[in-house]
């Protein structure tokens, strides 16, 4: 559907969300570049990524976040088809998947703390916790906004505004999942290679 991706065909909520993701994408990119910049320097002071991270374990917990792209898309399709209950189920599943991802992140942070790796333990800790922390904050905000939209749908049904909101959430979750691909590659896969 080529017309679907033109500015004329995009509702203003979704267009606004696209611009928000552009802005937040630049913000996260700056933090990710800082990680890339410092991890590329030798020698490293303090703990390093190679000895600290577990890419396979993180990959398993990343799968739910990547799946939110699909579940939020299904929620949008069902909202457009006025299948409100089904759309709500897909939206709740999106929130649940995001929560599982955050639990995985929480465990990873806890394991790193056990290894005495903190934000002040060296440049790896500094950059790693800032990059993943701000990404996780964005995921958490997505969960909160998703639940607010679900509440509004429960009260007011599937009006045009709610359909646009669910479409905007699909854009947002796709952005969050996509950016996690970048972070996973730069932070975790790079550590596995090095």
């Amino acid at each position, binding site marked *: 559907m080529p017309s679907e991706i033109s500015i004329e065909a995009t509702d*203003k909520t979704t267009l606004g969300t696209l*611009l928000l993701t*552009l802005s937040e994408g630049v913000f996260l990119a*700056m*933090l990710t570049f800082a990680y890339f910049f410092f991890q590329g320097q030798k020698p490293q002071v303090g703990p390093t990524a190679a000895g600290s991270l577990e890419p396979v374990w993180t990959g398993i917990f990343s799968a739910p976040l990547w799946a939110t792209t699909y579940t939020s898309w299904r929620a949008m399709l069902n909202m457009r088809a006025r299948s409100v209950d089904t759309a709500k189920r897909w939206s709740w599943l999106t929130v649940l998947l995001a929560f599982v991802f955050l639990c995985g992140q929480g465990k990873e942070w806890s394991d790193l703390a056990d290894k005495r790796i903190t*934000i*002040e333990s060296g440049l790896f800790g500094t950059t790693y916790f800032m990059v993943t922390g701000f990404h996780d904050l964005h995921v958490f905000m997505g969960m909160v906004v998703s639940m607010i939209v679900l509440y509004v749908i429960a009260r007011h049904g599937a009006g045009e505004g709610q359909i646009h909101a669910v479409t905007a959430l699909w854009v947002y979750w796709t952005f969050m999942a996509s950016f996690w691909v970048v972070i996973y590659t730069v932070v975790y896969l790079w550590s596995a290679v090095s």
Partner: protein
Amino acid sequence: MSTFTAAVPKPDSVKHHGLLHWFTTLDHKEIGKLYMVTSLFWFVVAGCLALAMRVQLARPNAPYLSPTTYNQTFTLHGTTMIFFVVVPVLLGFSVYFVPLMIGARDMAFPRLNSLGYWVFALGGFLLYMSYLFGGGGPPDAGWFSYAPLSDWPYSAAYGQDYWSLALLLNGIGTTSTGINLIVTIFKERTIGMTLKRMPMFVWMVLVNAFLIVISIPPLNATIVMLEADRRLNAHFFRDAFGGSPILYQHYFWLFGHPEVYIMILPAWGMISELVPVFSRKQLFGFVYVAAASVAIGFLSYGVWVHHMFVTPLPRPMWLIFSASSMLIAVPTGIKVFAWTATMWRGTIRLTTSMYFAIAFVLQFTLGGLSGVMFGTVPIDWQLTDTYFVVAHFHYVLFGGTVFAVLAGLYYWYPKITGKLLGERLGMAQFWGTVIGFNMTFFVQHFLGIYGMRRRVYTYAPGMPYWAPLNMVSTIGAFILAGSMLLLIINIFRSRKHGAIAGDNPWDGWTLEWATTSPPPEENFKMVPPITGRRPLWDYRHPEQADDINPGEAPILRQP
């Protein structure tokens, strides 16, 4: 006005009265006015700080400000002028006039518009709370707060944290307004208002809003990294732990140079609106001016390193960023050429607004030329961090942006209030501003060449020409302040006693002049048909209408 075609729905928001009204309003015009009034307030505050600095520098070894107080004063002056005066006043004009110029009822997201303003306002409030709660006074590391000076060991007081939080809030508010402006321009244009027919001011605001959305995040990232270093003992900018203070400069100027264009693009838009109206000609080379704005938007991301030529850089970086810094002068030159060509053989009406516009073109060109000088690496090495830089950016930001804002204020004040600003007082203010501004800042070029560093709080008596040039600069600053006082008097006096403006006092041709002065809450009773770039001109002179396709002429149509 029976030709207007599309009915506009009435607003449905609950209207409060008194002070509560200003806290709860969602009307873009009132939020625009809030931006303008708040900016004027901070302009007065930051102007007083500037006068304090000029008094301190008027003569050698002056005892009025201590080194620490002087550092705090220039830090607050620069931060306030850039983040809480220049950017928001331009946002105020944008928020007020963009919906009117595109025939919209309001901004795309009125609540977000309100949120953006109040978050910005809170940021300014927070910055000055550092005087009370900074635990050592306000921030003192300059408006760009380079690390490691701004890091904990060197700026231990909370003032620096107030600076960070104030700018974060300012960034959130500015970005939300930027997003809102883009969506408004793309989604709320009235029927017939194609992108090619949009007024040049709206074009400039569109490019500006994209710059805001993309440029503010690097600043926000820099600030959170700085605060992580300061309060969480992280190591981004700490050399001893492998961090890089140079990274701070890269990140800051990746924001900072596009910020220069954020502070000038809407001002160019104002000049591009009023010069044609007061010359009775269409803007010369409309398409090229719009294209030049877009080109500047892109190029502004490729020049930031010219702020860092004195840091250790590989030689190719000098060449690339020197070339790009000079290249960006080309689209800027196109604009200056277009404004001049618009005036050429025009029937020029010399109002106060037009006087400010002409002075803008001359002074901005001077500021732009001294900017090109900084693209030359050896000159940059010689003059960096001297008063030559101070003179350069004041010629761009005051001689350019502030003069354009003053031109825009005299042009649009009648639309905002329904009253004309007094022309006699306006002319007195104009000459005071031109003389005061040039006395203050022109001599600073020479101070820089004679070796006076920016940010020195005093100087020895024997420095060549420093004392007389500084005295001239200080006298100029007070003349400038006096002219601003005249402006404030004019604003308040005209509000009460000014001549009635009527709907279209300048015989303008963009849509804001098609409604009453001031406009009603719903902006238009009816929206005129848009058949070209000058809808009101087309309506009044259909035989001379611009760009009209056959069958598209503004035929009388009832709604």
